[in-house]
């Protein structure tokens, strides 16, 4: 008890912060800065992997900062979901950092101002994201949001060129507005309940009358919805993200919207469980998917197109979240982790394409598959993964969500299942267009090609590859592609883990016990259990979850494919198969 590694949770925030401070201190010396930044991130990743392995079996753990007990002090809570998000986000940021270092070495101080601020700001971003994932009270969550948003303002407007300033202003104003909305909600919540601690709120909110609950609920979701880029609130994203430098866009696209989704998931599971506004969320999810992907089809710039697919795939996450079932939530958790990786990878690859071809406009690209097969593979794998082609992890996650939707078996979930299949196909169309134009068509067929694409011979082109695609940039990208493939290979254990995380979140007692202590929870345990079993389906399956363990039960897949055409096969057979349950 004296030396419990889980008590080092706050270090996940502190290490990047101290790293940032030291990196600022050595602003004259770029090499030292780089070393400090990479070192701090590596330590963070190692620490978080240790934490994940602790939490994997141990369950939820809370650290009360400065020893003040829960409702009065600041708590940091790490549960399975938070630990997974921490590890995935840190690995992503480390890979992006290595990519940025590679790019910086290749590009020779293109954007450097009087003080080099990229590395410390990047670390502050990481600290803010970690803080948001670990926050045990609403106000700390707000502070976490503000930390990484402020860092993101600086990163987005790096260099201060005209396009970036233009995009930056819109982004900053929209973000500030959503933060204000969040702050108003915090104020109202405090006025209504007298606490901002998430666990304490979870118990006290049920005592409020329904109108007040609904208002607070919707206000929180709108505030987070802006940050998560859910459909009617997503207009700012495709305008602002693509103008930033490639590594910055990659880390924004991968992480920032997901923190919004993370906050939405916490809201839906911990603070306001139940099915009150699930139908609205599902309508929003369907619109996000469809409108997002239609936006993507209209774009010719790869970065903008990917920004729109990012919005579209946020729709899947909202869908899984709105199902209010363990299957749906497990799939959502898995899909968040998958999507962070895949979206970051695709933006990094786009950065490589831009370097190699001089543009990221598909109308001006051509012949890349011939010129650089490595680049083609690096693009092809995550692109197919994004579209959800089996056996990639995108397929596994979507399958889980659709299974959740089918299990719920109402007209709206069927509409959602149909919409997600359609979106998946349209995503395939969108990435196939990039592939067909950028990679497969001959460079000579391009109307107004960039000069850099037309080489005298293949040997000349390949020689240019060495200069334009340095190994220091390709290697981190390849690392991320490998990581996205690992999501497929380890889908079984990961899905198992997501399922345990989802179960924890719906039961709520592990979280509340960790923060408030068992005595406090014992008084209301019966109510909590009754509420959970009343609202959440399939919480306690006798077969250890084998029957609904979607990705492993391959026997279900033919059903899934016919299901979106007709409503005939609606009943999911509930057979328990111990053999399949055993092999994960």
């Amino acid at each position, binding site marked *: 008890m004296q030396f419990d590694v889980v008590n080092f949770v706050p270090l996940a925030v502190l290490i990047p912060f101290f790293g940032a401070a030291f990196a600022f201190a050595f602003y004259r010396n770029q090499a030292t800065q780089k070393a400090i930044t990479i070192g701090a991130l590596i330590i963070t990743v190692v620490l978080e992997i240790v934490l994940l392995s602790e939490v994997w079996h141990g369950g939820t753990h809370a650290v009360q900062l400065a020893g003040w007990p829960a409702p009065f002090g600041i708590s940091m809570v790490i549960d399975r979901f938070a630990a997974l998000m921490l590890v995935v986000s840190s690995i992503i940021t480390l890979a992006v950092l290595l990519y940025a270092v590679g790019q910086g070495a290749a590009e020779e101080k293109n954007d450097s101002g009087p003080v080099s601020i990229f590395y410390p700001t990047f670390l502050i971003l990481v600290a803010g994201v970690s803080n948001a994932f670990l926050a045990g009270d609403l106000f700390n969550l707000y502070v976490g949001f503000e930390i990484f948003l402020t860092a993101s303002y600086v990163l987005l407007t790096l260099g201060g*060129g005209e396009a970036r*300033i*233009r995009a930056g202003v819109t982004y900053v104003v929209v973000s*500030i507005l959503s933060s204000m909305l969040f702050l108003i909600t915090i104020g*109202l919540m*405090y006025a209504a309940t007298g606490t901002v601690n998430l666990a304490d709120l979870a118990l006290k909110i049920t005592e409020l009358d329904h109108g007040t609950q609904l208002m607070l609920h919707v206000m929180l979701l709108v505030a987070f919805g802006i940050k998560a880029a859910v459909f009617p609130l997503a207009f700012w994203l495709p305008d602002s993200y693509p103008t930033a430098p490639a590594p910055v866009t990659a880390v924004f696209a991968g992480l920032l919207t997901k923190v919004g989704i993370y906050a939405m998931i916490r809201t839906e599971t911990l603070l306001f469980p139940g099915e009150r506004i699930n139908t609205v969320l599902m309508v929003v999810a369907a619109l996000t998917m469809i409108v997002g992907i239609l936006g993507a089809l209209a774009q010719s710039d790869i970065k*903008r197109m990917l920004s729109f697919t990012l919005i579209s795939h946020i729709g899947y996450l909202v869908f899984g979240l709105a199902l209010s079932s363990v299957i749906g939530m497990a799939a959502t958790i898995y899909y968040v982790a998958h999507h962070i990786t895949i979206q970051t990878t695709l933006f990094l690859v786009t950065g490589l394409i831009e370097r190699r071809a001089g543009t990221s406009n598909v109308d001006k690209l051509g012949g890349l598959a011939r010129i650089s097969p490595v680049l083609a593979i690096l693009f092809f794998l995550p692109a197919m993964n994004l579209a959800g082609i089996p056996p990639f992890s995108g397929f596994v996650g979507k399958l889980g969500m659709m299974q959740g939707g089918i299990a719920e078996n109402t007209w709206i979930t069927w509409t959602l299942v149909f919409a997600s299949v359609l979106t998946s196909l349209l995503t395939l169309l969108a990435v196939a267009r990039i592939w067909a134009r950028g990679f497969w068509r001959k460079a000579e067929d391009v109307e107004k090609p960039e000069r850099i694409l037309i080489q005298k011979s293949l040997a000349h082109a390949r020689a240019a590859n060495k200069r334009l695609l340095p190994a220091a940039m390709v290697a981190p990208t390849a690392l991320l592609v490998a990581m996205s493939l690992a999501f497929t290979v380890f889908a079984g254990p990961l899905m198992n883990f997501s399922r345990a995380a989802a179960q924890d979140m719906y039961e709520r007692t592990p979280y509340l016990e960790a923060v408030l202590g068992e005595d406090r929870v014992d008084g209301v345990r019966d109510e909590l259990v009754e509420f959970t079993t009343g609202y959440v389906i399939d919480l306690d399956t006798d077969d250890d979850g084998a029957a609904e363990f979607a990705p492993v039960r391959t026997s279900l897949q033919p059903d899934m494919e016919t299901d979106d055409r007709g409503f005939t096969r609606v009943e999911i057979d509930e057979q328990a198969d111990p053999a399949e349950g055993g092999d994960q």
Partner: protein
Amino acid sequence: MTINLTLLIVMGAMLAIGIYLMLERSLTRVLLGIILISNGVNLLILQTAGRAGESPIVRDGLGAEEYLDPLPQALLLTAIVIAFAMVAILLALIYRSWVIARQDEVTDDEEDRRVATTIGAHDPEEDDDVGTETSEFIDSVDPVTGSVRAVNPAERNREASEEPTSSSDAHQAGES
């Protein structure tokens, strides 16, 4: 909970004016709007403490309800600092925008325009540049350096159509 009516009215007025200002296209006014909104929100948090009371230092013979709730003020302090930082960075952005492009407005996104034009969704009534504001500071010669800047599309339109501000104003009035 008891709420101070004056604070409530001031908060409402600040939020209302702030939202009105944020809807403007001029960045300086958006900034002023943000300042007002953030301070309105700060007042809201201040009010969640309820009725004013004794300073929260434990003394004998005072009941718990006699003290002022200190937590909202702690939250408020953090919120003020954050809002201050936000305003500072936004001010820097606006200044930069002014230095680079000599304009104090949210500009249109060129890529959006291009997509709209290629798929034939460009509606000249809706989407054309609208000259919103004329100012004595908008000049084609930079008063500081004496250099001549590029004239932006909004102004080119203005010159082309001879009588732009009045027509666009009338156009705006017609829309609203």
